[in-house]
């Protein structure tokens, strides 16, 4: 992304279900790692069934609104009524509902249990210039709309250098090398959805932030064009893709899609540092996989959650997001076929040379990225079981420290320093009068 006195071009992506086998869950949800902790992360929601797609794009642009613009290749012509300005809260709700989460358990009194050795098993896997010059450049403005706070253009082009020139002349800063990428989309007969902020409309509406843009279209292409975003060398891009489909989990067909490590015991101090923990964990997994995979962070039937980092989206929210097969009628009964997949990818040109192509699978197994805290029992009952419990506690804490070091790449000694280890040789009388 480039920002200067002209418009800022934000190149992002563009272009789709459930039987659960979860068991009862008895931990308490305590924290989540949402997308906000990643800098300049783009978030895209793709609602898809058959060839019908509703794509909602959001990003955490913090600059001057006049500097914002987005250019997205789209597979079909887009009319005014195919565009909707969404509520930012919708994407935030999706993010909160699907984010990796921290859950906690409290160890029971070892003296009141038949056996201390039993550990808790966790389930729930979890403006425009004159038309003549535009024609000379081979660029046709197919349509022009003002929707909400955005001025939107649908462009088609005959050649990439003409489009590049047109964009430059109209105040968009194009990174060097974009022409080649634009060219390949032109040859695939794709149109270009160009949006920038209409400052007057924005002032009228009174929003202090940029709302997500939703576009509905029909196309057999289930993909997200990410190549434009990799043209400039501003480092790797961070992208969250939320797909809402009917049959099951969504995965990439041209890159590996793997699950983020989950259901791992971590030390108690992670509760205070969950955001940096999740960030480091993700970076470490990206490094281990040579930045060549997409990570599934959540795959769940939207009718429920366990534990819930946030409530599932309501029918009304789903409809607004574009889930057209869900009835708007709050009285309509029955569970809706709504399966959410949250994919997280860090990508650059070298490791992700082609656009992301997706497929909907028949996989309806629920998955969530969750990390587990176990609070030691602090009672002072004395029994043989308590002795063996204390003896095992230190071992468990050491294991938790190693888990964190392995997941995040943090130095093991640094992790250990933050843990208050239990003393394994404490005698019963040492706590008797305390």
């Amino acid at each position: 992304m480039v920002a200067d006195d002209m418009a800022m071009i934000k190149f992002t992506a563009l272009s789709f279900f459930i039987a659960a086998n979860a068991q009862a869950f008895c931990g308490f949800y305590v924290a989540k790692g949402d997308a906000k902790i990643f800098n300049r992360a783009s978030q895209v929601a793709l609602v898809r069934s058959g060839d019908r797609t509703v794509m909602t794009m959001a990003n955490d642009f913090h600059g001057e609104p006049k500097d914002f613009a987005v250019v997205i290749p789209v597979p079909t012509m887009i009319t005014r009524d195919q565009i909707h300005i969404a509520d930012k809260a919708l994407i935030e709700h999706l993010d909160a509902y699907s984010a990796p989460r921290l859950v906690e358990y409290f160890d029971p009194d070892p003296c009141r249990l038949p056996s201390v050795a039993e550990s808790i098993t966790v389930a729930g896997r979890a403006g425009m210039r004159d038309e003549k010059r535009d024609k000379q450049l081979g660029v046709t403005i197919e349509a022009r709309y003002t929707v909400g706070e955005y001025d939107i253009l649908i462009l088609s082009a005959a050649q990439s250098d003409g489009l590049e020139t047109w964009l430059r002349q109209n105040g968009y800063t194009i990174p060097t090398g974009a022409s080649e990428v634009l060219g390949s989309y032109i040859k695939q007969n794709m149109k270009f959805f160009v949006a920038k902020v209409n400052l007057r409309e924005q002032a009228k509406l009174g929003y202090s932030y940029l709302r997500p843009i939703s576009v509905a279209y029909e196309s057999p292409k289930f993909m997200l064009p990410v190549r434009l975003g990799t043209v400039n060398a501003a480092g790797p891009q961070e992208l969250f893709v939320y797909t809402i489909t009917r049959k099951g989990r969504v995965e990439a067909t041209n890159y590996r899609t793997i699950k983020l490590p989950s259901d791992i015991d971590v030390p108690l101090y992670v509760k205070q540092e969950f955001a940096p923990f999740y960030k480091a964990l993700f970076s470490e997994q990206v490094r281990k996989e040579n930045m060549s995979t997409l990570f599934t962070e959540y795959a769940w039937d939207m009718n429920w959650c366990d534990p819930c980092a946030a409530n599932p989206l309501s029918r009304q929210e789903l409809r607004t997001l574009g889930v057209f097969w869900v009835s708007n009628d709050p009285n309509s009964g029955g569970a809706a076929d709504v399966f959410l997949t949250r994919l997280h990818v860090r990508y650059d040109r070298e490791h992700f040379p082609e656009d992301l192509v997706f497929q909907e699978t028949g996989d309806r197994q629920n998955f969530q990225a969750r990390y587990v805290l176990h609070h030691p029992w602090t009672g002072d009952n004395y029994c043989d079981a308590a002795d063996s419990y204390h003896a095992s506690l230190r071992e468990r804490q050491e294991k938790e420290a190693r888990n964190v070091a392995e997941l995040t790449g943090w130095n093991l000694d640094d992790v250990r320093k933050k843990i208050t280890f239990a003393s394994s040789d404490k005698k019963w009388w040492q706590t008797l009068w305390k």
Partner: protein
Amino acid sequence: MKRFDPRLYQIGALTLLLLYGLTALDFDTTWFRAALVIGAAIGAQWVCSRIWNVKFDPRSAAISGLSLALLLRSNSIVFLLAAAGIAISSKFAIRWRGKHIFNPTNIAIVALMIATPRVWVSPGQWGNVAFFGFLITCLGGLVVNRASRSDVTYAFIAAWSAVLIGRSLWFGEPLTIPLHRLENGALLLFTFFMISDPKTTPDSRAGRILFAVLVALGARYVQFKLFHTNGILWSLAACSLLVPIIDVLLPGGRYTWKQGGSSWSVSPQWRWHFVPGLLPRIRSAAFMSQRAMPRFSIARRRWRSSATAIAP
């Protein structure tokens, strides 16, 4: 000296790929499911051998089972068992002139993908990090095969590369894009273990090359016109239906898995089929006249005689 049965190499190579997939690539399946589908395929082979009264040989069934374990995914064990059943029974039930029409793994996957949304194939599961390891493993198969029917593999990889590279050149895309598409484990598995199945490819070399090119063009249509995943699998199933026609137009010697060796032979009766031009053959196929049919009567006799000795 006995020659090494190429199927044993294939079983070894596919087992290695499966172990690697389960341990290092986080394949979306379990050891139990993989073992189950392999066992089911061998079991189905045993049952079919009893029904059709032929000698039980688990080798081809093991290859089909391993291929299914590598490619097919489902939450339901029932569909995995059904896949093994369809794969093996298709070899016995769907035959033409003593050959089975479909590659067993291919027809099982395609039939289930048509029948239910609860199965899927993950072409992206291989990534491209270990691509060259896969490539070497697969190339080893060619060496063991002594290139007896490797022409279909070479022809397909050439045609598919031409499709991908040609498309990217036309769109002005960097060559990293077609290379990334070619560096795919699923593609290697398809090229070296599925389309090359000597029992389902055309009999003549010209026929096999034509077949490979048709499969590549079909895959291009599915993948880049319909924008449907797994274009090569759909295309192979569709093109397999053309093999009997290709065998009529371009006849050649029938392949046999020889005990302790692999070879294919052209019988003296069949060798003269290469001599006449293509045109009379098309004519005879079109009119099916008795006068122009001596070669077909030979074919029918061969079919009858081989019907009692099926060795899928």
